[in-house]
C-alpha cells in the first residue's frame, strides 16, 4: 500500500476533526435545545441568509478593513522593532523581558483607555489589533535574529556587507522560518484583537454583530457570526501553518 503523503494526511485529520466537531455540536444541541444553541443546519441556513443581505457584507468589509490595516501595521512595526532589538544587543537585552511581560498582561483591560484615546471606531479597532499582534512578531523576529548561526554573520562581515545588505542577504533568508511563525501567531492575535475591539468598542463589524446577538439573545445570529469567524480563522491559520511547516522543513 502506498504511504499517504504528509499533506493528504493532514487534510484527512482536519476532515475527521471537522466531522467530530459538527457531531458534538449536534449532540450539544440535542441536549440544551433551541434556547442556547442553533443546530448546525439552522446555523448554515441563517448564515446563507446573512450573506445574501447587504448590511452583512458591509460589516464583513469593515472587519476586514480594520484587521487588514492592523495586521499590516503589526507586521511592519514588528519586523522593524524585532530586527532593531535583534541587532542592538544592549537594547534587546534591556527591552526583551519587558516586552515578554507585556505579552502576558490581559490587554483586554486596556480597552477603556484605548476608547478614551481613540474614540469609537476604526482607529480604536486598529490600535487594539496592533496591540495584540505586534508583540509576538517582535519576539519571534528578535529570537530569529539571535538564533542565526554565528558563522553566517561572520561570513557577512568578512564580505564587508553593510547593515542593510546583511539583513537582505544573510539574516532574512536564515531567519525566515522563525519570522514566519511570528507572522502566523501575529495573524491570529491581530484578528482576535480587532474582533475584541469591535465587540467592546464599535458600532460596526462582525464583533459588533456578535455583541448585538448577545444583547438581543439572537442565538442564530451569534452562532452564524461565530461560524463565519471560525471558518475564516481556521482556513487562513491552516494555510499559514502548512507554509510554516514547509519553511521549517527546508532548513
Amino acid at each position, binding site marked *: 500500500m502506498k504511504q499517504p503523503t504528509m499533506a493528504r494526511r493532514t487534510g484527512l485529520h482536519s476532515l475527521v476533526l471537522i466531522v467530530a*466537531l459538527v457531531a458534538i455540536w449536534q449532540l450539544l444541541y440535542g441536549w440544551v435545545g433551541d434556547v442556547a444553541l442553533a443546530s448546525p443546519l439552522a446555523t448554515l441556513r441563517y448564515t446563507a441568509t446573512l450573506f445574501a443581505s447587504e448590511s452583512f457584507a458591509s460589516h464583513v468589509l469593515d472587519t476586514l478593513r480594520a484587521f487588514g490595516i492592523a495586521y499590516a501595521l503589526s507586521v511592519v512595526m514588528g519586523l522593524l522593532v524585532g530586527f532593531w532589538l535583534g541587532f542592538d544587543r544592549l537594547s534587546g537585552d534591556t527591552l526583551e523581558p519587558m516586552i515578554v511581560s507585556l505579552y502576558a498582561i490581559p490587554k483586554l483591560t486596556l480597552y477603556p483607555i484605548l476608547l478614551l484615546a481613540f474614540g469609537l471606531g476604526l482607529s480604536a479597532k486598529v490600535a487594539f489589533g496592533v496591540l495584540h499582534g505586534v508583540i509576538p512578531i517582535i519576539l519571534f523576529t528578535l529570537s530569529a535574529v539571535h538564533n542565526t548561526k554565528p558563522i553566517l554573520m561572520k561570513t557577512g562581515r568578512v564580505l564587508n556587507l553593510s547593515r542593510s545588505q546583511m539583513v537582505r542577504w544573510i539574516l532574512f533568508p536564515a531567519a525566515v522560518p522563525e519570522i514566519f511563525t511570528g507572522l502566523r501567531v501575529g495573524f491570529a492575535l491581530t484578528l482576535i484583537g480587532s474582533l475584541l475591539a469591535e465587540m467592546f468598542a464599535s458600532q460596526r463589524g462582525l464583533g459588533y454583530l456578535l455583541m448585538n446577538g448577545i444583547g438581543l439573545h439572537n442565538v442564530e445570529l451569534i452562532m452564524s457570526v461565530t461560524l463565519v469567524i471560525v471558518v475564516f480563522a481556521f482556513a487562513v491559520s491552516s494555510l499559514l*501553518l502548512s507554509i510554516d511547516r514547509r519553511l521549517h522543513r527546508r532548513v
Partner: protein
Amino acid sequence: MSRLGWYRVLVVGGLVALLEVLCLTGAIDKITMQAPHLIVRDLSRMLVSGRMNGAIAKTLTNTVLALLLALGAGIVAGALLHRVRALRDTLDPLFATYYAVPVFAFYPFFIVIFGLGDMPQILIAFMLGVVAVIVNTLNGLDRVPPVLLKTARIMQLSPVDTALRMTLPSAGPHLLTGVKLAVAYAFIGVIGSEFIMSRGGIGYEISFAYANFDNATMYPLIVLILLASIAINGVLSRWERKLLLRRGMRSP
C-alpha cells in the same frame, strides 16, 4: 541590581515621567487620562478604604478556580494525547487555530445553561487557558530525552516514579510556560466576561466606571490588574529561568 536592571528601571521611569508631563501640561486631557501620581493616590485610597475588596475577591477567586481547572485538565489531557498519536494529529489543527477564535462568543450559551453567576465566567476562562496548557505539556513531553526514559526502564522505576523523577523535572520548564499563559488567559477570560455581562467583579467595576466617566476608579483598577499580572508573570519567569539554568539549558 544588574546594569540591565537599572536600564529597565530608567526606561519605565522615563515612560511614566513622560506620561506625567503630558498629563500635567494638558497634552493628554483629564477626561482621557489622569496623571500617574493621581492614579497611585487613588489606588492607595481605594485599597485602604476597601470599597473594591468584594469585587477584587470575586475576580481573583474565579480566576484561581479557572486556572486550577485549566491546569488540571490541560496537563492530564496533554499527557494522554502524548500517548495517543492519532488523536493528537487530529486535534493539532484545532490547537494551531484555537486562539484565532473569539471564545467569548460562547459566553451567552453558558449564561443560558448555567445562569448569570460565576460558572459561565470560570468556563470561559478555563476554555481560554486549557489549550495553552495542553500545547505546552505536549511540547514539554516531546523534549524529554529518550535516554532518561530508557534509564528509568532499566532501573525498573514504577510509572509514578518515572513521572516524578524523570518526566516532570525535564518537562518542567515547558509546563511553566503553559502555567504562565494560563494565568494570563484566566485573567482575560474572567475580566472579559465581566465586561460583557455580569453582576460584579473588577471587569464589571471598570466598565461601570468607564460608563460614568469615573476615571478615579477606572484607572486604579486597570493599573491594579496590570501590576498583578506582571508580578505573577515575573515570579513564574524567574522560576522558569532557574529551572532552565539548573538543567543547563539556556533560557529561551
